[in-house]
C-alpha cells in the first residue's frame, strides 16, 4: 500500500520539480555570466504560456508530427517513474531496471528524431541526423555503465543498486568512480548540455535538439520542453540514486525517514544543478567531429570500470 502511495508521490514530484530544476540551472548560469537572470520559476510560466497558445502545424505534417510530443513526454515520464528519487520503496521498482530505462529514453529520442524529419525541412533532418549520431555513441556507453554497475552489485535494478551502495556493499571503489565519470559524460550528451549541444542556442549551425523541434509551437512545444526538463531531472536523480544514495528512505521507513529522503533528494538535485551550471559556464561547445572522441571516452571509462572490477576481484 505504501509502495503505491509513494509511487504516486514520486510520479507527481518528478514532474512538478522538473521546471524548477531547469530554472535553477538557468538562474545560476545567468548569475555566473554576470546577468541578473529570470526567477527559477520562469519555466512554469513559459510552459503555461505555451499551453495557452495555438499550435501551428505545417501542411506537410503527418500524424507522426502530432503524436511525437506526447509519445516523447510519456516515454520520458515513465522513465523518470522507475528511477528512485527519495525512496527505493516504489511500486515499479522491481519491474523496471536500467536497461529498460535506456530503452525508454531511446524510444523518446526515436520519436523526436522522426518528428524532426516528418515535416521535411532541412533543419529538422539535420538535427535528427546529428541526434542519431549522438545516440549511437551515447547508448553503448550508457549500457556499458549499466553493465559495470550490475557486475558490482549483482543486479540491473536501480533500486537494488542504491540499496547495495547504501548497505556499504561496494564502499569506495575505483570501478564506481570510473562509472560515475562515464555516467556524467553520457548524461551531458543525453541532455544536450554544453560541450555537446547548447540548450540555449538558436544559431543554425550549432543546434541539435533545437533544430529538430523548430517546427513545433503551442502545446506541442510545451510537451517537448517539459520532456526535456523531466529528462534533466531524471539524470540528476539517476546519478544521485546510483552513486550517492545517502539519505534515501528504504522499504519500511517511517514518515521522518521519508522526509529526510525528500530533503536529501532536493539537496542533491540542486547541488548537481549548481555543478552543471558551473561546468557549462567554464567550457566551450565542442565541434561535431569531436563527439565521437568525447563519448568514445565515456565508453572506454565504463570499460575500464569493468576491467578494474575484475582486478579487485582477482586481488
Amino acid at each position, binding site marked *: 500500500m505504501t509502495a503505491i502511495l509513494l509511487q504516486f508521490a514520486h510520479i507527481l514530484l518528478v514532474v512538478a520539480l522538473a521546471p524548477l530544476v531547469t530554472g535553477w540551472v538557468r538562474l545560476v548560469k545567468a548569475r555566473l555570466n554576470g546577468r541578473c537572470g529570470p526567477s527559477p520559476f520562469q519555466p512554469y510560466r513559459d510552459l503555461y504560456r505555451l499551453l495557452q497558445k495555438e499550435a501551428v502545424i505545417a501542411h506537410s505534417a503527418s500524424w507522426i508530427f502530432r503524436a511525437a510530443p506526447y509519445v516523447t513526454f510519456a516515454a520520458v515520464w515513465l522513465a523518470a517513474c522507475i528511477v528512485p528519487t527519495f525512496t527505493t520503496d516504489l511500486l515499479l521498482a522491481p519491474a523496471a531496471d536500467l536497461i529498460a530505462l535506456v530503452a525508454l529514453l531511446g524510444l523518446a529520442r526515436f520519436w523526436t528524431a522522426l518528428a524532426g524529419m516528418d515535416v521535411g525541412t532541412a533543419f529538422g533532418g539535420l538535427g535528427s541526423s546529428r541526434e542519431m549520431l549522438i545516440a549511437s555513441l551515447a547508448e553503448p556507453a550508457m549500457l556499458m555503465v549499466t553493465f559495470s554497475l550490475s557486475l558490482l552489485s549483482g543486479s540491473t535494478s536501480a533500486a537494488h543498486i542504491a540499496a547495495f551502495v547504501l548497505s556499504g556493499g561496494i*564502499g*569506495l*571503489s*575505483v570501478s564506481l*568512480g*570510473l562509472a560515475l*565519470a562515464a555516467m556524467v559524460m553520457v548524461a551531458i550528451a543525453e541532455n544536450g548540455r554544453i560541450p555537446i549541444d547548447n540548450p540555449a542556442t538558436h544559431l543554425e549551425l550549432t543546434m541539435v535538439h533545437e533544430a529538430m523541434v523548430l517546427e513545433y509551437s503551442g502545446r506541442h512545444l510545451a510537451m517537448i520542453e517539459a520532456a526535456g526538463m523531466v529528462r534533466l531531472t531524471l539524470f540528476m536523480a539517476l546519478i544521485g540514486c546510483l552513486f550517492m544514495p545517502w539519505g534515501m528512505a528504504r522499504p519500511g521507513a517511517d514518515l521522518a525517514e521519508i522526509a529526510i529522503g525528500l530533503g536529501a533528494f532536493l539537496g542533491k538535485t540542486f547541488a548537481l544543478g549548481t555543478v552543471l551550471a558551473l561546468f557549462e559556464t567554464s567550457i566551450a561547445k565542442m565541434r561535431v567531429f569531436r563527439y*565521437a*572522441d568525447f563519448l*568514445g*571516452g565515456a565508453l*572506454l*571509462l565504463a*570499460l*575500464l570500470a569493468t*576491467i*578494474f572490477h575484475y*582486478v*579487485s576481484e*582477482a*586481488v
Partner: protein
Amino acid sequence: MFAHLSYDVAHLIGATVLMAGFGLLYQRRLQAVLNTFAFQALALAAAAGWQAHVQNAPHLWATAGIALVFKALLVPFALHWLVERLGIHRTVETALSIGWTMIVGVALVALSIMLVLPVTAGAAALTRESLALAMSVVLLGLLMMITRHNAVTQVVGFMALENGLILAAVSAKGMPLVVEISIAFSVLVAMILFGIFFFRIRERFDSLDVQYLETFRGDRQ
C-alpha cells in the same frame, strides 16, 4: 574496516592519476595538455601524501612535497612560459586519431594488469593493484611520446611516464629518499635541457614538429 578504507582511498587516488593519463591522451591543445599534466602531478602528490599517512612514513611527505612543488607547479609553469615564448600556444595537434589512441590506451591498461597480477602473486594486495595502476600510467606516457609529433607534448609524455614511476615507488614500501630526490632533480635538469633543445629545434627547422628531424641528414644535403 580502517585498513580496507585506506586501501580503497589509495586506489581511488591511483585511478585519478590514471584518468589524468587518459586526459593527456584526449587533449589536443598544448595548454590543455599542460593543465592536465599539472592535475596529474597534483593527484600524484595526493597519492604520496596518503601513503605517507597510511604507512606512517615521514619521508613520503617529502616525496609528496617534491611532487607538489616541482611537478604540479614548477614544471607546468616553465612549460607554459616556454610555449608562450615559442609562440605555439594555439597549436592543435592532429597527429593520430584521438579515438584510436584511447582504444590503444585501454588495451595497454589491460596488458599491464595481465602482466602485473600474475608476476606479483605473493605481494600485498595494496601493492599489487597500485603497481598495475602505476604501470598503466607509465605505458600511457610512452604511448603519448609515440603518438605525438610536437616536441613539447612528447616531453609531457616523458614527464607523465616519470609520474607513473613515482606512483609505483610510493606504493611499494621502502624507496630511499636519496633516490627520490635525485630523480626529482634529474627531471628538473631534463626539463631545462629540453627547454634549450626546443629553441634549438625551432631555430633550425622553424617548427617543433619532430617529423622534420626524421628526414634530416645533417649538413651534407
